[in-house]
């Protein structure tokens, strides 16, 4: 066969499999997603701009973006510790702990939402102690932050673990034999290897946090201009049948998500090349 779209093969079933996949993908994902872009195209630019730059919406950008960034950063720091401990050390119950890391990923967001809220309200198990020190978590931006730390937790740990497992112990032994102490060995030898995975994990946790809804809306309290996250504003616009407004905000979110998706893919592609070269 000519060197065109597909290389000739004697295995059967390409066109049915490929055709069905593309059909199903278009039907379920591509066509519906395009509705956002097309709908925005029909609305006027003025209306679009007014919606996405209105004070409430801008406040939600700040909250969503800021809290997601902070939460992802915290997850990088602690996720690294958790991954290190799971890969390098032995302690009773380690397997259980390893399995629990996936819980935020497996637990339905609404369940996480109400559970976290109940913990951090004034009478909650944790909230009651924090109130005594003057810190309110539930129904404040801090609550949003806490919820986003929860759901982003597995991303960094699972990103770093495989890379850490593959680190050659002989490299560290070589550094030690050359006189480096543990800190130097870690910061100069091991950490650079983990950087790409940390970056990828950060990006994934950040992306997930930006779009998160269920875990956050209970603990946030949804107070206008203060604790409204951007996805919530889409929902409220929809409930008011303001399709154009909802779509406008959705477009902003989609652009951000796609940019992140591309970044993550690029990062993963680069780290794979780096790993292969090693």
């Amino acid at each position, binding site marked *: *066969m000519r*060197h065109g779209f597909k290389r*000739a093969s*004697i295995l059967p079933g390409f066109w049915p499999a490929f055709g069905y996949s593309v059909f199903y993908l278009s039907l379920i994902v591509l066509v519906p997603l395009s509705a956002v872009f097309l709908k925005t195209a029909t609305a006027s630019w003025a209306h679009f701009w007014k919606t996405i730059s209105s004070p409430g919406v801008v406040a939600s950008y700040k909250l969503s973006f800021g809290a997601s960034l902070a939460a992802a950063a915290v997850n990088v720091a602690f996720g690294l510790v958790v991954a290190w401990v799971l890969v390098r050390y032995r302690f009773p119950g380690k397997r259980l702990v390893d399995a629990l890391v996936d819980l935020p990923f497996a637990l339905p967001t609404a369940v996480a939402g109400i559970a976290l809220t109940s913990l951090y309200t004034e009478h909650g198990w944790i909230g009651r102690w924090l109130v005594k020190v003057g810190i309110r978590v539930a129904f404040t931006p801090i609550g949003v932050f806490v919820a986003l730390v929860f759901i982003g937790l597995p991303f960094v740990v699972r990103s770093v673990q495989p890379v850490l497992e593959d680190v050659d112990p002989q490299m560290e032994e070589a550094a030690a034999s050359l006189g480096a102490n543990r800190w130097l060995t870690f910061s100069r030898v091991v950490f650079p290897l983990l950087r790409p995975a940390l970056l990828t994990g950060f990006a994934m946790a950040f992306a997930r946090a930006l779009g998160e809804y269920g875990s956050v809306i209970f603990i946030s309290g949804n107070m206008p201009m203060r604790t409204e996250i951007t996805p919530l504003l889409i929902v409220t616009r929809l409930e008011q049948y303001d399709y154009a407004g909802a779509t406008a905000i959705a477009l902003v979110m989609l652009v951000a998500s796609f940019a992140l998706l591309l970044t993550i893919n690029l990062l993963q592609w680069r780290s794979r090349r780096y790993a292969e070269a090693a």
Partner: protein
Amino acid sequence: MAIEARNITKTFGRFTALRDVSLEVKEGELLALLGPSGSGKTTLLRIIAGLERPDPGAGSVLFEGQDVTDQRTGQRRVGFVFQHYALFRNMTVFENIAFGLRVRPRAERPSKKYIQDRVRELIALIHLEGMADRYSSQLSGGQRQRVALARALAIEPKVLLLDEPFGALDAKVRQGLRRWLRRLHDEVHVTSVLVTHDQDEALEVADRVVVMNQGRIQQIGAPEEVFHHPASEFVMDFMGSVNLFHGRIDGGKAVFGQLVLDHPNGTGAEGQPARLFVRPYDLDIHAQHDGRPGLRARVERVQSAGPQVRVELVAETGEAVTVEMSHVQFRDSRVGPGDSVYVSLRDARIFMEDYTI
């Protein structure tokens, strides 16, 4: 079953794997396709099997005179043994061997009992009795390859095609399996085509050898013929070690430094470059000129740790020469490093420059 490949050309993108290759495989013979990687031998084998198709309009494959070029591989009744075995990892040895019989359409499928008997027969043939329930991950490389062979034989193929079947195995295992394959072939008499890059293997096992290079056939013949009467430089160089001398045609003779030889083509090719190929064991070392054509050389190194003694010398023309002789001969010659000696030729081939237009 006789096989014929006619004028096969096959390209992969910009790479041409086979250029107008034609080949006939005789009924019942064991033919070896020998050549370096990239020579096209595996591609040719796969085209015969139906795992690849020749470029459109560029060649055909015939089984017993019938054109099967467009026939699906499953319909050709060929047995194919892959280089990396390709055993079905989720099936036992028994299930692997029985596979070809079990997937036959209802109408042609043999009875359960027949399948059982046949598989057990084959398991005995490959000496793996008692391992019928093992999975491939529980077998050694050599055992896996034997299962792959049995699996191919189970469907009673008209031709057996083997793609570097022993390439991934240890040297000792390879040798044992080689001999076993030859004996098997003598017993079963299936027309077989074997692809290999190992010339020892081809020479030891095959009835005829096809030497290939860069998508073309260089020579076809019995092992002795290909080895002792190579048709081209490439064949001679590829089959075993060789000493190479550069020279040219001068005054009707082939001249290599002090070495002057008669050459049949000498009259028509005045001034043209020529190359002299000599096997290491076709050279003798003497203290003096012994009347045969040869040249002076100085002994650099003697390697006597091995089945033969290898003497490395430098000729007066500056070229490196390697001579092989038995230990007895070496002792008799009393030669040592630094000695100046005379190296004489017993047999050699002269090749003119290959001009490809």
